[in-house]
C-alpha cells in the first residue's frame, strides 16, 4: 500500500491511498484503502492515510477515529494518532501518516516497520523504515 497526505499553504487538506491488497487474498476481497474512514479520510481538521492489515483497519475505522479523537477530545494530531495506533488497533497490524490543518505531521505505526517520509514548510524532513 502507498499513501500521501498533504496540507497546502491555504490550509486545504487531502489524502490519497492506493494498493494491490494482501498477498494470496481471495478474488473480490476489498481492503481498507477504498473504504472512507477506514484506510483513507480527511476533514477540516486533518488528513489520514493508513496501511497494514485491512481487516483490522476496517474494524477499527482507523482514519476516521484519528479525526474523531482530535474533534471530540480536543487533542493534537500527534496524540490522537498515537492513541488510535497504540490503543485502538491490534499490535503488528497498522501504520498511518497524517497531517493537520495547522501543518502538524505524524507517522505512527505498531508494526516492525513502515516506509515513510515527510517534509514541512519550516524545513523539517524525515525518511524512515523501522
Amino acid at each position: 500500500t502507498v499513501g500521501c497526505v498533504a496540507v497546502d499553504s491555504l490550509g486545504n487538506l487531502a489524502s490519497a491511498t492506493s494498493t494491490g491488497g494482501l498477498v494470496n487474498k481471495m478474488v473480490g476481497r476489498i481492503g481498507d484503502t477504498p473504504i472512507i474512514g477506514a484506510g483513507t479520510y480527511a476533514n477540516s481538521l486533518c488528513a489520514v492515510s493508513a496501511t497494514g492489515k485491512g481487516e483490522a483497519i476496517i474494524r477499527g475505522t482507523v482514519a476516521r477515529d484519528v479525526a474523531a479523537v482530535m474533534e471530540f477530545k480536543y487533542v493534537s494530531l500527534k496524540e490522537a494518532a498515537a492513541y488510535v495506533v497504540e490503543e485502538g488497533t491490534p499490535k503488528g497490524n497498522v501504520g498511518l501518516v497524517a497531517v493537520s490543518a495547522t501543518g502538524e505531521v505524524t507517522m505512527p505505526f505498531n508494526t516492525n516497520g513502515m516506509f515513510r517520509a515527510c517534509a514541512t514548510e519550516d524545513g523539517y524532513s524525515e525518511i524512515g523504515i523501522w
Partner: protein
Amino acid sequence: MGWAIALHGGAGDIPLSLPPSSSQSQHPALDVVELVVRELENIPHFNAGKGSVLTTQGTVEMEACIIDGTKRCGAVSGLTTVVNPISLARLVMEKTPHIYLAFDGAEAFAREQGVETVDSSHFITPENVERLKQAKEANRVQIDYTQPLHKDEKKETPEADGDSKLG
C-alpha cells in the same frame, strides 16, 4: 562494518533561498497527494499499481481512494488494467455523482474516461509471483512485507474470523 548509503543532489554555491517557484509549485493539496501516489504506483517495489501483490488466483486487483478536507472523495476497487488507480478514483470524485465504483463498472468507467490502461500482466512482477508462492506454502494471507516461513515453522491454519495471526 554493515551497510551504509549516502546520496547527494549536487554540490556548489546553492543559493540559500531557492526561488519560491522551485520550492512551491503552487499545486493544491489534492493535486500533490494524487501526483505523489501516482509516482509510487509506478514504482514496482511498492504494493500498488505496478508491483501490486497477487490474489490467490495469481491475478491483480487494485484499489485506491482520494479525499479532501471538504470530504469530497472518490474510491475504486477491483481494477485489473488501470495504470494509475488513484487518478481513476479522482475522476470518480469529479465526474460522477458517486463515491465508489468497483470491478467491471470501474473498468468501464476507466475506458469511458480514457485513462491509461494496459494488459494485467504489466502489473505482475517476479517478486510478487514468489511472494504468492510463499504465502500459499504457508497457507496464509499476508501483508506484502511478511517474512517467509522458516523451515521449522508450522503451516498456518487461517483463523475463522479471517485474521491470519501471521498476516
